[in-house]
């Protein structure tokens, strides 16, 4: 079997996406949740690689990915800062404890 590289990249992106979503749905720990978000973001980046390769526009794709990495890092930093605060106020990182607001 001889898969074209584009298909492999798409396939990888989908697997990463699935893993990230799975993590999002089942993980309780806030830090692990941030990791799941990171995996999801990596899926998106890989998808850009695939798209850029398919369209023969790797330069454009790379510059976009660079921006995504920056944005993604900023979000991760804020998320971790919040996680620190949560640990301080609640004494736990379990997101299922964070259900005061509902209904």
């Amino acid at each position, binding site marked *: 079997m001889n898969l074209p590289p584009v298909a492999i990249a798409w396939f990888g992106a989908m697997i990463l996406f699935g893993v990230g979503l799975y993590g999002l749905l089942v993980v309780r720990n806030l830090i692990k949740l941030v990791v799941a978000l990171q995996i999801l973001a990596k899926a998106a980046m890989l998808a850009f690689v695939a798209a850029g390769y*398919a369209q023969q526009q790797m330069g454009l794709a790379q510059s976009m990915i660079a921006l995504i990495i920056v944005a993604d890092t900023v979000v991760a930093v804020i998320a971790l800062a919040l996680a620190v605060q949560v640990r301080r106020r609640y004494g736990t990182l379990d*997101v299922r404890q964070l259900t005061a607001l509902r209904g």
Partner: protein
Amino acid sequence: MVVHPFLWLILIPLASAPLVYLAGRLGGSAVARGLALLALLLTGAPLIITAQDLISQATLTVALGMVQLKFDGLSLLLAVVALGLGACASVFSIPYMAGELGEEKYYAALLGMIGFIIGLGCAADLFNLWVWFEAMAVSSYMLVAFYRDQPASLEAGVKYLVQSAVGSVLVLLGIAAVFGETGRLTLNHTTTATTGLLAAGALMTVGFGVKAALVPLHTWLPDAHAQAPSGISAMLSGVVIEAGLIALLRAISPVLGEDSTARFGQLLLLFAVLNMTLGNVLALKQTQVKRMLAFSSLGHVGYMVLGFGAAAYTGQLAAAQGSMFHLLTHGLMKGLAFLSAGALLYALYVANGTHGPLTVQDLNGASQRYPLVALTLSVAVLGLAGLPPLAGFMSKWQIFVGGVQADDPLLVVLVVFAALNSVLSLAYYAPLVNALYRRVPSEAVQHGKAVSWAMMAPLVILSALVVVLGVWPALVDGLSGPAARALLAGWQ
């Protein structure tokens, strides 16, 4: 190189955001406040120039290297709402946030958010749109979780961040799919949508839908909008979710073709029904004022999506224009509602050093001590309910005209459904107003502190606008018309 002054609309708030932060750090929070207000005032000048130039031209373009920025009617509408409401929220925040830890960060993030929203309106390609959107989101995360020693505020911030981040990833995947399928990222419609493009459309609809609070992606909204500082609640409900909606509507243009436009229209109509139902029904059960207003925002997103969906479904300009008008009036009314509720929250709780949620019970008899705030809050919620002579009546009317004009039985049924929802919303707005005018003041009102003029000034201005637009709706035809045409230009 001569660049059009609309660039200053984005540059002034964005450049002044770090300055405000530094000034606050070095010179104290009073300097930060003054500088922030000055920046917003200065931004008004390019706004006026740009608006005048837009009369003769449909779009203004600026190219910065590879990136292009386009300013059209929709950008103008978004800029006007963001800047106007942002200015009101900033003035309101002067007494509200005075003495809070990290006040300079607050103003810096608020300015940044305003700049990013204006930029989002000018984005000319998909990826650029995402960048602005993400920047706006990041600034709003900081503002939602501003009270970081409050557990409720932290909880809201965490949920908001995680859900928005997931939405953002979905958008990116959608953009990648469009890019991989067509090799271009421009915000123009296509001829025929392929499977890949449809999937991309789905990803982007859901991704931006998280930020626009489409049901069932809305779950973060009541938490975030209720827990944020009141000035920010006004911005989030009045501009940010609308910006998300505009981003959604612009982003799906590359996947709209002859066969898929109507299909996306139907999808939007479905979301409209879900939003109106869930928002209004759940608002009925709320006991906290800000949370009730947050749920009502879900319903109002439903009205807007109804108009936009009808426009996509049938190609009607009138429906889209009605939604644009409603976007504006909802910004005014919901901003007014949150600021008024915030003024009461401040007087009854914050000024007394507590962070208790403002419940409907607390409002009992508030009109006796705070007659003006009670009046503005009543104007806001009655306007949201769509009663004349207030702006909400006219904007809903315009959406309904657009819906019926399409001459499609489905849309007539949806218009009736939307009208039923308006009636249902009275069942939670009316008790709110009743409570305000009760004779026996609540415990909280009795111990309440005074509300300063800086808080009341924005309330008076917004109420006046809500009444004026309720009597003379055509005043803003010059905003809503070009905005609707600009949106549809990308679709057809």
